[in-house]
């Protein structure tokens, strides 16, 4: 299906929207950078520049030099914001504690998220970062950008913010780091009305949904992740921007079980593409892999000599459910035992492909907090067909939200609520029968309890009656 935007979209042309000239953007030389010192002494922060990896300190110094050489009227917040930021970081190293104050009443009108308030508690020493608010900008689906788009948002942020950004935050948004309160509304206006972008989610909101690259480039995508991400982002605008949840809630869309956006590890509701028919096998290509005519893993590990490809050792014996074998030179798969680990498909992409009857598995309750309590999501809906406009999915989402909003404690994630109430209660809420796939050890774990109405005769059967047939 071709992409149809919800509203007419214009193509962003940098030449029409640009704020800075080429001379202004390239206003320093590498020689000048070598001799450049910021106004604060930052020995510990500079330690971070050593070692083999690129460092944010080196990047920040470039930005500091760039801002120092821009004309005064070409930036709307203080020019030495980056220098003060590094200076305060040094003080934090010295003191062993942070000097940021977090939160407060900052935001843009009508939105309860998207802006994270931040203030320095050393405002006299570092006046340029007295305010250092963060904005989250909703990334395009699969993070597809044009160069014009990137240049436009960079110019805007240089002009009205610190020029420092984070590509991307863990939820996927583009993060604008550091501006003053009075710049928030103008930035919001420019983003919305000129650049046609929206803020992302923060706080107790639906967080910015994110998806893998999907059908745009990947033949394994079992559903159109970008379309579903776009549709649900638009449909749930109110939930994204006006907080009413007990805490954060994340959707993530993975086109196949390779889980490229790691939905299983961090989304409260993970959508993972799957198939319910059989893995497609091209037996000729299997032979070509065995004979070494095609590189395994599409050549991803070709830099080193691993020896001849051994299908027995590298594919069949690594199958977690041992559902593969060779028979008369042909690769066989017992598809009903397959757990969709994707290993065989990843190793031999030319020979094996996902089935054609595709849809999603829906899992609930993952979270990945910074300190403790990380939890993977629970497979709840093994298979669901998904097609635009996703009414079946929306119905499920709303059942879950209604329950969580009603019963969830403040700052309790969905996964914690499911733990507190138990899986049977959760299944009752969404109206699904318990299935062995939901239970880690179906034959030994009394996870699912019977209810009186589920048992013929209820709890009222007499033991005497039972003993008549079963002698002690």
């Amino acid at each position, binding site marked *: 299906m071709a992409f149809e935007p919800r509203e007419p979209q214009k193509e962003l042309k940098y030449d029409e929207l640009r704020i800075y000239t080429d001379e202004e953007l390239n206003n320093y030389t590498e020689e000048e950078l070598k001799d450049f010192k910021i106004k604060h002494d930052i020995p510990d922060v500079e330690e971070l520049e050593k070692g083999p990896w690129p460092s944010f300190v080196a990047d920040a110094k470039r930005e500091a030099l760039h801002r120092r050489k821009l004309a005064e009227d070409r930036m709307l917040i203080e020019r030495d914001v980056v220098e003060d930021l590094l200076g305060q970081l040094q003080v934090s190293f010295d003191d062993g504690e942070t000097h940021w*104050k*977090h*939160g*407060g*009443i*900052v*935001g843009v009108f*009508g*939105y*309860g*998220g998207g*802006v*994270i*308030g*931040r*203030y320095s508690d050393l405002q006299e020493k570092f006046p340029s970062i007295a305010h250092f608010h963060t904005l989250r900008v909703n990334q395009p689906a699969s993070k597809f950008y044009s160069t014009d788009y990137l240049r436009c948002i960079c110019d805007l942020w240089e002009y009205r913010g610190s020029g420092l950004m984070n590509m991307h935050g863990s939820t996927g948004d583009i993060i604008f780091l550091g501006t003053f*309160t009075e710049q928030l509304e103008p930035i919001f206006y420019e983003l919305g009305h000129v650049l046609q972008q929206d803020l992302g989610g*923060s*706080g*107790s*909101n639906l967080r910015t949904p994110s998806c893998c690259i999907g059908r745009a480039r990947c033949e394994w995508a079992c559903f159109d992740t970008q379309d579903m991400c776009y549709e649900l982002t638009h449909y749930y605008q*109110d939930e994204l921007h*006006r*907080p*009413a*949840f*007990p*805490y*954060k809630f994340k959707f993530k869309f993975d086109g196949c079980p390779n889980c490229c956006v790691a939905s299983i590890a961090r989304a409260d509701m993970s959508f993972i593409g799957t198939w319910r028919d059989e893995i497609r096998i091209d037996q000729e290509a299997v032979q070509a892999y065995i004979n070494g005519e095609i590189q395994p893993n599409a050549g991803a590990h070709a830099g080193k000599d691993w020896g001849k490809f051994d299908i027995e050792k590298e594919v069949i014996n690594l199958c977690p459910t041992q559902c593969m074998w060779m028979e008369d030179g042909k690769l066989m798969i017992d598809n009903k035992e397959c757990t969709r680990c994707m290993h065989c498909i990843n190793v031999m992409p030319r020979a094996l492909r996902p089935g054609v009857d595709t849809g999603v598995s829906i899992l609930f309750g993952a979270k990945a907090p910074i300190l403790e309590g990380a939890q993977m999501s629970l497979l709840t809906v093994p298979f669901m067909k998904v097609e635009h406009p996703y009414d079946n999915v929306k119905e499920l989402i709303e059942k879950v939200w*209604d329950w969580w*909003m*009603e019963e*969830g*404690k*403040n*700052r309790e994630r969905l996964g914690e609520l499911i733990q507190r109430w138990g899986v049977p209660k959760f299944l009752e809420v969404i109206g699904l029968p318990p299935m062995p796939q939901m239970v880690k050890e179906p034959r030994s774990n009394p996870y699912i309890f019977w209810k009186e109405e589920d048992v013929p005769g209820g709890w009222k059967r007499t033991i005497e009656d039972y003993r008549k047939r079963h002698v002690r």
Partner: protein
Amino acid sequence: MEDIKKAILDFAENSKKTKFYFSDMEKAVRKVIPDAKARAVKKAATELINEEKLIFFSTGSTSMYGLKGRGQTEDH
């Protein structure tokens, strides 16, 4: 809708804390209007925000509501 809005404002003016979670606001509304739906309470709260009577408040990770002018104000 108007009675929900009134219940929210009553709660916002008299609550012990000046910033509160949505669910606490919802509970307070339920005390006055027992069959108020969460979605209706949310819509009423959004209208009050648009009328500039309520404000959103962010802790950095969680969002709360507050009465405009009560407690911590815009100029922190």
